[in-house]
């Protein structure tokens, strides 16, 4: 690996950030991959999340809660990007991280997984996020509650409702054969204020 540059500040501060970055880079990247249609923007989100962490390092809680904190930032970064009201890309400029390795591999339309994704895209955003945090980020309900800022009970309810809707959708075959929309696209339908960002 190329030698990372020194980041200004005390050695302890820099060491802590390095540890945070190395320990959670992939988790944050995966979080973004799961929620973004445009894979080329994943690097922007990852950079935004860790830039925020660097600026607010004193607020980052110790492990294991640090990852939840990062997820919470990532969630807000994505929400802001979707709203298009702020151009977070300008925070650190357009990123050109080489993401050839992030080769998109969408399942074929009509495949069971595609149907699940299509059904998930029709969920309410809060329900979908709770479901994803629990199943994809593999958080407990209490941990997911920290990320989204609600009670654990609320997460339990959202997950329960989401699963019920998924079962219904899959059994009814309402989504069979559809090309699944991403969360980005689904949220654009949910939000009148959504405007695609120009990259």
């Amino acid at each position, binding site marked *: *690996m*190329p*030698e*990372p*540059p*020194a*980041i*200004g*500040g005390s050695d302890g*501060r820099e060491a802590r950030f390095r540890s945070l*970055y*190395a*320990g959670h*880079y*992939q988790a944050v*990247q*995966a979080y973004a*991959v*799961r929620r973004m249609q445009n*894979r080329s923007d994943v*690097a922007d989100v*990852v*950079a935004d999340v*860790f*830039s925020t962490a*660097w*600026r*607010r*390092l*004193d607020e980052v809680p110790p492990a294991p809660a640090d990852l939840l904190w990062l997820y919470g930032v990532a969630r807000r970064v994505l929400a802001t990007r979707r709203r298009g009201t702020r151009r977070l890309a300008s*925070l*650190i*400029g*357009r*990123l*050109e*991280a*080489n*993401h*050839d*390795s*992030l*080769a*998109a*591999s*969408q*399942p074929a339309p009509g495949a*069971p*997984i595609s149907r*699940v*994704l299509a059904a*998930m895209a029709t969920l309410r955003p809060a329900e979908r996020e709770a*479901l994803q945090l629990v*199943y*994809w980020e593999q958080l407990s309900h209490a941990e997911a509650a920290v990320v989204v800022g609600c009670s654990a009970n609320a997460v339990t309810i959202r997950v329960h409702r989401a*699963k019920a809707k*998924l*079962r219904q959708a*899959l059994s009814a075959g309402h989504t069979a054969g559809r090309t699944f929309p991403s969360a980005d696209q689904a949220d654009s339908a949910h939000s009148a204020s959504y405007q695609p960002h120009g990259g």
Partner: protein
Amino acid sequence: MNIDELITAADPATQVVLDEPDSLAAARIYRRIAEQPPAGGRPRLRLAAGLGGAVIAAGVAAVVAVAVLPGAPQAPTGAQADAVLDAAAVTAAHEPAAPALGAGHYFYIETIETVDVGILNSRVTVTLKAGSSGQGPDFAECTMARQVWIAADMRIRTVVSPVRSRPGPVPRVCEVYAQRLSRNLAGPGIYVFVHTAGLPANPAALEQIIEARYVRGRPGSEPIIMSIASMMLQQSRSPAVRAALYRMLKLLPGMHYFGPATDRLGRRGMAIGLTISGLRTELIVDPATSALLEQFDVNLARGQRYCIPAHVAGGVPVQGFCISPPAVGAVIGYTLYVVSGVVHSETATIPAARG
């Protein structure tokens, strides 16, 4: 599968290969973040206010010397490259601002470069074979001297002339190509004019501009960014922008320090560079003057002999030939940044410093 298994299996992150934390992509993002100030807005690098530029440059140069001189405790080569670039940036930032070009004044730039004239052009091939020592088209590379005069109104005069780079006469193809390049500002493979007006004095913004204008998402772009930055360093007359260009080079992942070096004019500097796809691109920088002396490429890949059978091109029979790959470690192209500065006529030149 039950609903739980279906949801889990639908995880898009399992459909892609995530970057490792020690990947180039991760390193690049990290470097971007490194340019951000921490909480409170304190910049990453702040120079001591009130100190003279020469004092600062001397101090940083001393730090570089400690970091890179033989016998000194060895820092990682990446850190050493950063030290060289930091020193060059500090020196550049404290150079006097160049006055605006007045009427009758010109910004003069002189380079010596190798130019690939294209071995697959059959007419060139025939010329080359006739003019060379019979070893095949080994004269496909010409060495050219390029002189550029830029007026205040951005009128540009260019003179390109072939340079004899080996015993014997200059190949005819190089003379022809030089004439063509004299009329063409952006000849293929040769030093091009880059617009430096309005460039920001911010490393990340500079990289963004270079990527947007010249790279456009091409993978393995670091050597391209280095080349464009080199041209901008030569052509920009803003101390702040030149300093930012040196700091921008620090953002490129994989930058290493290769030790003290002497360019083809005998000038001494320090070599830094990076390796992408079997090609090592190096810059020789003199941190004490902030001068970029030379850029060159070193082949590190073992290529295969490449043969073109006899054929007819444009009705002209072309004899078949083979091209041997460059040896591992061979320099396969270079640009010498000879001199630049303001002159008082569009034919005046500046004597080049020699080592």
